[in-house]
């Protein structure tokens, strides 16, 4: 071992005046400007070209949206590197340091920045904005439903709001953990200096940013009236907003695909010396399996939305029976995407919950390998269950039994997740800090979501509940009460590392109880509506359901207030919070072993890992440490797959 050589911080590198090339002139404003400019040009050109033809509006909207997305990304700098590559003028090392944000202070948060920590923070803000938008729309829905025949919104606006609330929330929940924490935290966890492809990482963020205006533009284009599932043929006859909606999805698919690939490659190839697959923190496993599942699910979304656009803008007939298509084709491909996507949302937060439970119970994760097997089993089964969304569509009644089987089988690995969670809590030294409260809320809600799911998996019962508020309450319990509360726990847990400051937990407790009670009141109200037989997505309902709806609305307002308190806590913490120590939770994963704020390449000295991060109470030195001095020989990087994963007993049930 040599003595410590204090390496210079990369942030302090003095860059030449021309470092970065075009990146020097690009930021979100050039992106917006160029996107709007190109979109406007495309609008003018397409308007002049296709005016008067059939489907003219659809053509115009599609062209404008494509041009906006491409233009925004050109303006941001997404395509700089590929164009450099094609022309053979590679970016220099200085350019790349510039792109990583060196010497730009906080303005790098508004630029195409390849530093994974900047991307993670950008994602966190984007997710919060999206939740704000989705939550506002949810408030519109609940306000309309206070009285049976409210004239607050007209039915068209109501349908548009229901649709966009759904899609905004789906997008936000898909990226709520895999965006901020799989980017910011996960590379540090595995001892990497960055994601495997930093530019793809930045691209995945700015591409999804460019998708958001397309989605919100739908309100100005007539509104998508077909629900977030946009079942054909209703969506084929929807206003031109549907084209913007489909473009949003196509853009989002690019982002998720790129992000998923990046996550997998990072974990497979970028691990620190000694960080075998069996020593990865469980959260890493969750993001990898979630990313892989996203990679499976997204091509189906791309295919179905491409066909939707051609059906609308060029008159093809994939989904319209009158002209030779089939609505069941749409439903099949959509749900081939749709159900795995639920687990893309769910797996990373669940893994984060296990991680947090371990830290705050001061115990190793119970059944580490079993939990990973559970993730993989969920992922594998989830691609075989899609038709349970189609039990009542009349498509292939003979397949009801097999799909009932696969659907109910999923409850076995889900049960394993519960076993691992309560096994981790079992006889632990429960340290009830804020993240832990949300872990308990996750357990409470997710059980309810899971149990109500089994009624829906049963075809005879699903014939009553399908298309009913019961379904709405069920998936809000799993996705809001489960996934989003898990993500909230993750926010509270990693906030000190991300922002460098502590949260005010007294305010957090207030927010916690408002959210916890709000969820129960809101969605028990909806279970009640569902039992009474109120259909989903209706703007006017039978006065018979009024009490249940008012209960749900009251809960929703409480929930909104709770999230606002939580938001206040975050903003306040970010600005005035106590300065956080590097490892406030005394956790053992690598991200807590690096200083806060995390330096540009995370590790001044490469970490060497000798055990998994769950050595609580085992009386051995932490196996995941960052040495203070550089080890003499530079570590030979171990290729993936060739390292024996069982070198160290990494726990498990055996």
């Amino acid at each position, binding site marked *: 071992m040599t003595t410590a050589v204090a390496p210079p911080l990369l942030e302090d590198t003095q860059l030449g005046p021309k470092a970065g090339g075009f990146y020097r002139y690009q930021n979100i404003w050039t992106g917006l400007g160029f996107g709007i400019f190109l979109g406007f040009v495309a609008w003018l050109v397409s308007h002049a070209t296709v005016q008067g033809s059939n489907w003219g509006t659809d053509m115009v909207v599609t062209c404008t949206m494509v041009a906006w997305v491409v233009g925004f990304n050109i303006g941001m700098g997404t395509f700089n590197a590929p164009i450099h590559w094609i022309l053979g003028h590679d970016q220099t090392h200085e350019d790349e340091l510039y792109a990583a944000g060196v010497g730009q202070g906080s303005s790098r948060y508004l630029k195409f920045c390849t530093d994974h920590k900047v991307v993670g923070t950008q994602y966190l803000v984007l997710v919060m904005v999206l939740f704000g938008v989705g939550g506002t729309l949810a408030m519109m829905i609940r306000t309309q439903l206070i009285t049976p025949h409210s004239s607050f919104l007209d039915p068209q606006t109501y349908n548009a709001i229901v649709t966009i609330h759904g899609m905004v929330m789906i997008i936000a929940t898909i990226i709520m953990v895999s965006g901020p924490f799989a980017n910011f935290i996960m590379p540090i966890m595995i001892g990497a200096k960055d994601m495997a492809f930093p530019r793809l990482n930045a691209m995945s963020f700015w591409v999804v940013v460019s998708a958001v205006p397309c989605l919100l533009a739908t309100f100005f284009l007539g509104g998508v009236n077909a629900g977030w599932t946009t079942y054909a043929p209703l969506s084929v006859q929807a206003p031109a907003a549907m084209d913007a909606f489909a473009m949003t999805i196509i853009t989002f698919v690019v982002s998720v695909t790129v992000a998923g690939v990046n996550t997998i490659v990072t974990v497979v190839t970028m691990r620190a010396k000694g960080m075998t697959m069996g020593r990865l923190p469980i959260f890493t496993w969750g993001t990898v399996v979630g990313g892989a599942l996203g990679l499976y699910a997204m091509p189906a979304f791309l295919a179905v939305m491409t066909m939707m656009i051609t059906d609308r803008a060029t008159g093809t007939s994939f989904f319209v029976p009158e002209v030779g298509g089939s609505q069941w084709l749409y439903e099949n491909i959509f749900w081939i995407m749709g159900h795995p996507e639920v687990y893309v949302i769910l797996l990373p937060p669940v893994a984060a919950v296990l991680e947090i439970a371990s830290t705050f119970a001061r115990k190793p994760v119970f059944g580490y390998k079993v939990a990973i097997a559970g993730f993989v089993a969920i992922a594998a089964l989830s691609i075989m269950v899609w038709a349970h969304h189609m039990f009542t569509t009349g498509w292939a009644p003979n397949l009801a039994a097999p799909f009932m089987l696969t659907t*109910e089988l999923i409850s*076995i690995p889900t049960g394993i997740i519960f076993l691992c969670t309560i096994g981790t809590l079992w006889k632990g*030294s429960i340290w009830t800090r804020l993240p832990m409260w949300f872990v308990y809320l996750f357990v409470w809600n997710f*059980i309810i979501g899971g149990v109500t799911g089994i009624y829906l998996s049963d075809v005879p019962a699903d014939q*009553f509940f399908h298309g009913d508020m019961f379904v709405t309450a069920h998936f809000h319990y799993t996705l809001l009460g489960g996934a989003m509360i898990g993500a909230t726990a993750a926010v509270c847990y990693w906030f000190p590392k991300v922002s460098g400051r502590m949260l005010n937990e007294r305010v957090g407790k207030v927010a916690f109880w408002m959210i916890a009670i709000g969820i129960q009141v809101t969605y028990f109200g909806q279970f009640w509506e569902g039992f009474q037989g109120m259909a989903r997505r209706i703007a006017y309902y039978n006065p018979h359901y009024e009490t249940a709806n008012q209960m749900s609305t009251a809960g929703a307002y409480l929930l909104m207030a709770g999230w606002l308190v939580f938001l206040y806590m975050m903003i306040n913490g970010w600005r005035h919070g106590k300065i956080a120590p590097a490892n406030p939770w005394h956790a053992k994963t690598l991200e807590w072993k690096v200083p806060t704020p995390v330096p540009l390449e995370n590790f001044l000295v490469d970490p060497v890992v000798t055990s998994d991060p769950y050595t609580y109470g085992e009386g051995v030195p932490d196996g995941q440490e960052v040495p203070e001095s550089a080890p003499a020989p530079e570590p030979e990087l171990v290729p993936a797959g060739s390292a024996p994963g069982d070198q160290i007993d990494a726990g498990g049930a055996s």
Partner: protein
Amino acid sequence: MSFEEEVDEIEANTLLGGAPFFSRPGGKIFIIWLVFTVIGVLIGFYAPHHLLPVMQSPEGGDVWATIVFFTVLAAPVAALVYAIAFYSLFAWRHRSEDPDVPPPDAEPQRGNGPVTVVWLAVSTVLVVVLLFWGIAVWSAQQVSHPNALQVNVTGQQWLWTYSYPGTGVETRTLDLPVNRPVQFNVTSVDVTHGFWPAVLGVQVDANPDVVTVIRTTPNKLGKFIVQCSQLCGLYHAFMNNTGDVVTSQQFDTWLQSNGATPTAAATAAGTSSSGSTTAMGK
């Protein structure tokens, strides 16, 4: 009591320790589990009984029975998770002077093979039971009756229309004779709708250019509501109408008042036939 003493006490009172059962963690968890299970089972009986509408067909009864049965199966599992989670929060929670100092590490438990195996086995058995229940009920519902009353259902933005083949009757309300198997042939002329007579316990989508079929046997007199369960555009919320389960004499009269000839009405209503309809119980 210092934390170490507390830990010692917990260790002494493990599941198989020497103290009386109900003062050990296992015993306390058992009590909490029992309470939660009972609550869950009670909800399982209460919710369908008091919240579901009155079901008017055996298929509706299946919904009722499925909810009760599944809740009874699921309640113990959910209650166990809740019991352990709650118990851990109240018994093993660590309170210290300085909240920033973590409690000492707990005894490490990296897994427990037997527990995992038992958990897996139990959940597998439960899933198999659920599956058999589902398949049994579903295949019983698939039986078609040769002399079932045929009703053609047409969905359209935003109205259902019903026609009774052989009678020439076309209406917007759905009247059905009691205890007579009925087969709905459901289709749509524009977009996908969901044909959902909730209290009959059946539901199927109305798809354009395709006829989907569901069967049921109304067994209880009374009015009900048919809704559209698939978002179908602007007035989706208004796409509902009333139905009525009536006696076959009343049905006969109703058909005639809607323009059917007496013979056709009698045939459709089954009042003139041998009455071989299968009454599937009330």
